[in-house]
């Protein structure tokens, strides 16, 4: 497992001492966590929860909260590290959403909206509203390397994070909108690499927010940031969303998109 320095400038969802990776198997979840209420963020606010999979053990109660589909998927991984990442991500997604809905983690039911582009079954994942008329938040889950990001909002939301330590990503430039690809092509390394990754996380956040996913391509809209003005996607709707980058743990980059226009206020939440 690659140690990732966590000199993070923002509080993470769980405490990880910088430069001191916690091995998997160190439980941070009590079996019966007592959770405070957590109001669903309103307006243009988005809550973002970060978890380091090396510091979280899903625990017996956490694993028991997964549904049959999640367990089947977890069982299908060829490598234990991938299974662990998946289990942590989905157990913590349930734990986080339980705080906003006042429902037991195991009682949450997930569905998928149809894809807004093709009508297929792989649109945005959604919570099935629990009985009692509790409003359900929009949410989005992303993971890369050792980090899991969960975004929660009162509107449809999308989050993406990518581990920064990648080899050459030049070939990704051809997947972008031609105007973004031209911008990227005019830059010298290493700015070019950074720009490609920036466009990628922003575009993927937008496509997760709309529910299309990247299956239909990322080139349908311009998503690059522009200094000063914040770019075509800063506050005005791009593809129906506002999108912005946000602070991520050291070694990662991340972006969040929220349905509709208007600046997004990101609040990083700590797991307590």
């Amino acid at each position, binding site marked *: 497992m*690659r140690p990732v320095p966590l000199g993070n400038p923002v509080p993470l969802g769980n405490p990880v001492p910088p430069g001191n990776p916690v091995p998997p198997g160190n439980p941070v979840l009590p079996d019966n966590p007592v959770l405070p209420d957590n109001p669903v963020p309103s307006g243009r606010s988005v809550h973002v929860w970060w978890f380091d999979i090396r510091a979280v053990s899903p625990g017996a109660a956490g694993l028991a909260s997964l549904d049959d589909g999640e367990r089947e*998927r*977890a069982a*299908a*991984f*060829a*490598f234990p590290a*991938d299974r662990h*990442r*998946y289990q942590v991500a989905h157990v913590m997604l349930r734990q986080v959403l339980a705080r906003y809905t006042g429902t037991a983690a195991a009682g949450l039911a997930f569905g998928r909206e149809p894809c807004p582009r093709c009508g297929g079954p792989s649109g945005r994942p959604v919570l099935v509203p629990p009985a009692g008329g509790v409003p359900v938040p929009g949410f989005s889950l992303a*993971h*890369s390397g050792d980090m899991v990001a969960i975004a929660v909002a009162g509107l449809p939301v999308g989050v993406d994070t*990518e581990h920064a*330590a*990648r*080899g050459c*990503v030049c*070939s*990704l430039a*051809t*997947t972008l909108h031609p105007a973004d690809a031209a911008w990227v092509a005019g830059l010298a390394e290493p700015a070019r690499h950074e720009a490609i990754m920036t466009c*990628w996380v922003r575009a*993927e956040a937008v496509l997760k927010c709309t529910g299309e*996913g*990247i299956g239909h391509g990322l080139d349908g809209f311009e998503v690059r940031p522009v200094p000063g003005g914040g770019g075509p996607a800063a506050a005005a709707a791009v593809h129906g969303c506002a999108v912005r980058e946000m602070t991520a743990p050291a070694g990662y980059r991340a972006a969040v998109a929220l349905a509709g226009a208007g600046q997004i206020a990101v609040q990083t939440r700590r797991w307590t």
Partner: protein
Amino acid sequence: MTAAGRPGCPGMPGSLQLAAVTDDLRAFLASATGRDELRHIPAGTELFGPAVGLDSLTGTLLLREIQRRYGVDVAAEDLNLDSLATLGTLAAFVASRSDPPGPP
């Protein structure tokens, strides 16, 4: 990249070309992800299912790399994307499409 993986390499028997492409894809996945264990995954491993947990960016890089190395645009040429099922089906698709056209 091995000589056997070069598109249109003359005189290369089909099965050898397939093995070379499979190894090439394994090596690319391992280097793109920094995960050495991917060098040894069986040909029957599902690539885009949960088996190896490829993320969308790595999957996209893989398809772009295939286009660059072999001149095969998998997403455009395999319309129902059956070739993406496993490492073996993807390698077979690439090997068959990158073969030089036969004599008329």
